[in-house]
């Protein structure tokens, strides 16, 4: 049963998610703007860490920042409904997609996951 308090809490979560989503989009756009660093265009110096020209160091920083923005995005904006598919969402049938391979069954998945796990551990 949906109570008033649970409704309020879900509305608050949704509002927070929207804010973070906007923030992530803003950060990606900011990265795209910062990427076009006309201000370092003809600068050979300073040498960051004593060896990296500033133009290269700036872009290495952009790559690091892209990873960080990715971290924020997957931590706060991950589309949760996609993960629901993991738990055995609606199964496709051959009538649904004639000619396509049927999706892997739960039986298929389990041993494969073990195989992968073994491989990754090694």
């Amino acid at each position, binding site marked *: 049963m949906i109570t008033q308090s649970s409704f309020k809490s879900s509305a608050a979560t949704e509002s927070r998610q929207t804010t973070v989503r906007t923030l992530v989009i803003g950060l990606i756009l900011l990265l795209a703007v910062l*990427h076009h660093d006309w201000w370092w265009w003809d600068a050979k110096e300073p040498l960051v860490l004593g060896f990296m020209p500033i133009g290269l160091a700036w872009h290495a920083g952009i790559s690091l920042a892209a990873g960080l923005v990715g971290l924020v995005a997957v931590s706060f904006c991950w589309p949760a409904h996609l993960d629901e598919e993991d738990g055995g969402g609606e199964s496709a049938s051959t009538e649904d997609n004639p000619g*396509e391979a049927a999706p892997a069954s739960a039986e298929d998945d389990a041993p*494969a996951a073990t195989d992968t796990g073994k491989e990754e551990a090694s």
Partner: protein
Amino acid sequence: MTFTIILCYLSLLLFLGLFAGRLLKKSSSDFFLASRGIGPFMLLMSVFGTTMTAFALIGSTGKTFDQGIGVYGLMASWSGIIHAAIFFLVGAKVWALGKKHGYVTQLGYFRSRYQSDGLALLLFPLVVCFVILYLLMGVIGAGRFIEGVTPETFSESTVVTTVSLAAAPADLKVPDGWKERVSLKDGNLSVTGSLHPKRKGLFMKMSKAPEWKKAVGALIAKAPRGAVPKWAGMAIVCLVVLFYVFFGGMRATAWANTMQTLVFMVMGLIAFYVITKALGGPVEASKKLLANETKNSVMAREGLIGKWQFLTYCFIPLSVGMFPHLFQHWLTARKASNFKLTVVAHPICILITWVPCVLLGMWAFGVLPEGTNPNAVLGMMVARYSGEALAGLIGAGVLAAIMSSMDSQFLCLSSLFTNDIISHHFGKGKISDEKKILLGRGFVVAIVLICYLIGLSNTQSVFDLGIWCFTGFAGLFPILFAALYWKRSNKQGAIAGVLALAVLEATCYFLSLAEGEGEFLLLGMMPVTFIVGITTAVMVIVTLLTPPPDEEIVEKFFPAKN
């Protein structure tokens, strides 16, 4: 030594293929998608390995030598931002749809989303053509690379090669080790034994006389190289990839990609460490270059890369969204959240691979002669500052980068033929899983053979065309994005978009031929800018002018969230 190390590495891959083959279950889902059971680390490694080619090591170093450090911003940091965004927005969503509706290939998704066999048939030749071009760059590149790094492996010690040279140059200085092999008599310059192009520099140093340099060029072209020939190198690489894809399908491909990605990342770092140490450390190398007024231009971008070119290059990484082989890798994930690591770590992996190579290319400009072939820069730096063992290890790293893309492409083409043509059009519901695997394997063999034969007969034109395959995939990206996020998008719009892409791509290609050598730009911008813009506009206009898709389709692909 170099060739032995390369052979050891290739043998390791064969073993891996054999091992993965033993675990293969008799289902087409296992052969083409590893039973959708790949974990986060392997997904990251296989996706990163697939998007990186030999260009990540050789090309990045050479291009920096040619165009300066701006190459990193142009190709690597844009890719970091855009690839990660695509994996987040497209990859995870494609995975969920693939899992829910059982898609094996990209075309299967398009056919189902737009309820159009025509669209899939229209896309099929385009996608196959682009992938084959991409593949050929790898096959030919591998053959050329092995030939380049294996001089005197099969040395012919008795053969004598002679070219004419009117008189001995006055300043001729033949090094000690070569005095017995080089002779100048009766207006003829002769060399005994094999002579690899790698030795050209040594011969050029013997004299500064112009007639000598001309004669050396002729001698190098005429003499046996003693290296593993290009046809053999191509055959070895094709057979190794064929072996593990044939026996292990997608599981072997994902395993091999993981290993190969780690190999080329580690080898790149080792090369960087050894060469940097020989140059006196990174600080010393950069200071020396900065002090050299005639050569320090590579430390900036002014005069080497255009500002609009730099900005509009952002459209090229969109191609990743439409690579059919990457699409197939996305479908192998065990769960959607496995994409999280790829989204976060992909830009960092790019950083780890590219920054050392760009720095090496920059320092190489200070120490190698101008006019050096950019593709030979990394090899020359390795040869000059390290031993044969490292050359062999770097060689294995470069081949790893090439093969980590090739295997996915071979398997993807086989999937397209098996699932989208044979199974869909000729065997609806009649082809058993075992037969699908058999067909898949047959197609892998056929595609490897076709690529090998084309690779034997053609070389440069493939590389010239290859640039356009990235532009083509990028031009198709808006159609995929609309399919995923625009409920109103329909088959008419998608078909119009594909046709527009084909016409624009052909037009730009012929314009580039007319323009001649050098990078082809339109108004100082990458042609892909116009191709993506116009394709999107055509798709949107035609979609809005034609009826919306059926409610049933909209509900299937855009279910209401609870």
